[in-house]
């Protein structure tokens, strides 16, 4: 699977641009709690990307023996404060392999397994190693588990791992896939597994465009079929798109198609990021400034929600993401990272226990702990675009080698958002 807005589906939520069919688009970098919440039939099943402290009201029903909804909301808020305080990796993302049956032109994965033509002799974690890792993650308090790749369904032991995670360790599973390997039999097993959602990349509104990006003819048709198979079994599907040069002209059609296919939510991102080995060649597919502006200014699928400008002193108090505190990422080779984008390894689970790696004091941890808000970052604290910026420390690191530096793609996007916001404000005013 390519760089499909992984961030917007994971624990951080700051990377992508969530677009909710029939719901206002979010402009702030709220942390994603769950991929989806909503009472079926209550018209709320499109609610996704629930931001801590922002969207709880819509997402949390009466709970347990707390009969009052405000009590339940308050309880969840309090629990999340504990999670932050104790640095529990509640949101964990494991790439089970970087091997993939497609070859997306913008993919950020660099597979290193020599048995698959990779550059180094790195081997994917074995079934037993993954099982042992899941035991340790459950003990550490992880709950929301994203399994991805590469293409996770190329792993023959996928269901063994997924059922163990769900049935034995009680994780809430979200799966990322390119959708091309899902047939009837797999769809049946996935229905039995009951993940919270399966997120599938939609990279074109036609076979011509989608297949050219994934470089495998027939992929588009297989994706459309897969979505049908999953939806007909009541599985929640989230389609997501990386908007880039080769599919920009179909941006609106892709959102419409997602709606037609029954995607619970359609999520798009205009962030094409460097490969995880630092190769920036893929950035040639990024939108130009003019295209970004054009895309953000569109009324479809949801119009830009106006944000009242606030003074810089106030804007820079905005909190940064929870990388290294409430989310973590583990590569197919067992390396533990603070998140999928911040690729500074904290250790390898083949050498040390997860808990030991996660809790060990390190320069990286100290640095991350010092960054609570944009005001703690040298470039951001004086930046005039801070209010509408969704920076990512990891991508700043990949771009510049300094995780505290300005993330240049975020700057370009923040400038475009500021312009669109001002125009919407003028219209409304």
């Amino acid at each position, binding site marked *: 699977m390519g760089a499909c807005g992984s961030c917007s589906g994971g624990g951080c939520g700051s990377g992508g641009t969530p677009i909710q069919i029939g719901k206002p688009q979010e402009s702030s970098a709220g942390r994603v709690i*769950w991929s989806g919440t909503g009472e079926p039939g209550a018209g709320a099943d499109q609610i996704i990307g629930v931001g801590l402290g922002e969207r709880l009201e819509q997402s949390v029903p*009466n709970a*347990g*023996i707390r009969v009052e909804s405000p009590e339940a909301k308050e309880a969840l808020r309090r629990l999340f404060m504990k999670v932050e305080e*104790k640095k529990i990796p509640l949101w964990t993302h494991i790439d089970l392999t970087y091997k993939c049956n497609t070859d997306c032109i913008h993919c950020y994965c660099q597979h290193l397994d020599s048995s698959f033509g990779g550059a180094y002799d790195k081997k994917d974690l074995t079934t037993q190693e993954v099982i042992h890792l899941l035991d340790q993650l459950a003990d550490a308090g992880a709950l*929301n588990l994203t399994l991805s790749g590469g293409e996770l369904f190329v792993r023959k032991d996928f269901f063994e791992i997924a059922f163990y995670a*769900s049935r034995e360790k*009680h994780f*809430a599973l979200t799966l990322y896939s390119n959708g091309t390997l899902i047939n009837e039999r797999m769809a049946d097993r996935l229905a039995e597994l009951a993940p919270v*959602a399966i997120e599938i990349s939609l990279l074109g509104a036609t076979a011509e465009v989608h297949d050219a990006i994934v470089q495998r003819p027939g992929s588009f048709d297989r994706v459309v079929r897969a979505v049908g198979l999953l939806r007909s079994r009541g599985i929640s599907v989230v389609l997501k798109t990386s908007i880039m040069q080769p599919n920009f002209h179909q941006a609106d059609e892709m959102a419409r198609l997602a709606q037609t296919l029954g995607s619970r939510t359609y999520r798009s991102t205009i962030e094409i990021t460097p490969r995880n080995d630092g190769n920036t060649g893929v950035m040639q597919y990024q939108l130009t400034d003019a295209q970004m502006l054009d895309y953000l200014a569109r009324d479809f699928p949801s119009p830009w929600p106006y944000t009242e400008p606030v003074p810089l002193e106030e804007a820079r108090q905005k909190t940064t993401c929870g990388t290294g505190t409430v989310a973590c990422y583990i590569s197919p080779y067992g390396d533990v990272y603070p998140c999928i984008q911040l690729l500074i390894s904290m250790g390898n689970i083949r050498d040390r226990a997860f808990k030991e790696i996660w809790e060990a004091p390190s320069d990286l941890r100290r640095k991350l702990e010092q960054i609570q808000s944009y005001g703690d970052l040298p470039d951001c604290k004086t930046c005039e675009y801070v209010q509408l910026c969704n920076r990512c420390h990891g991508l700043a690191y990949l771009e510049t080698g300094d995780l505290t530096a300005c993330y240049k793609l975020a700057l370009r996007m923040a400038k475009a958002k500021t312009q669109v916001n001002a125009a919407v404000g003028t219209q409304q005013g």
Partner: protein
Amino acid sequence: MPATGPCRRPEIAWRVIDGEAIVVNPRSGLVYPFNPVATRCWELADGSRSEEAIIDTIVEEFDAPAEQVRQDMRGFFQMLHEKGLIQPTQGSS
């Protein structure tokens, strides 16, 4: 062996943090925070105990007015059923 009392549905995701559970129904995507009493009750709901046995344990462990707890617990089990968090059981008293 069929469950004889309230039993958590196998696909329900949950984690206990400091004595309080976060419970997720993956089919609806809904998230439920449980307080310590509800959490203990949830942990005990593995199908091996009847509803009454679970209630007795809670009354004992939490040193609370029995009638009040019984009433709350019955409402709680009802909610668990309605929200699809536990499966129908055979012979729960």
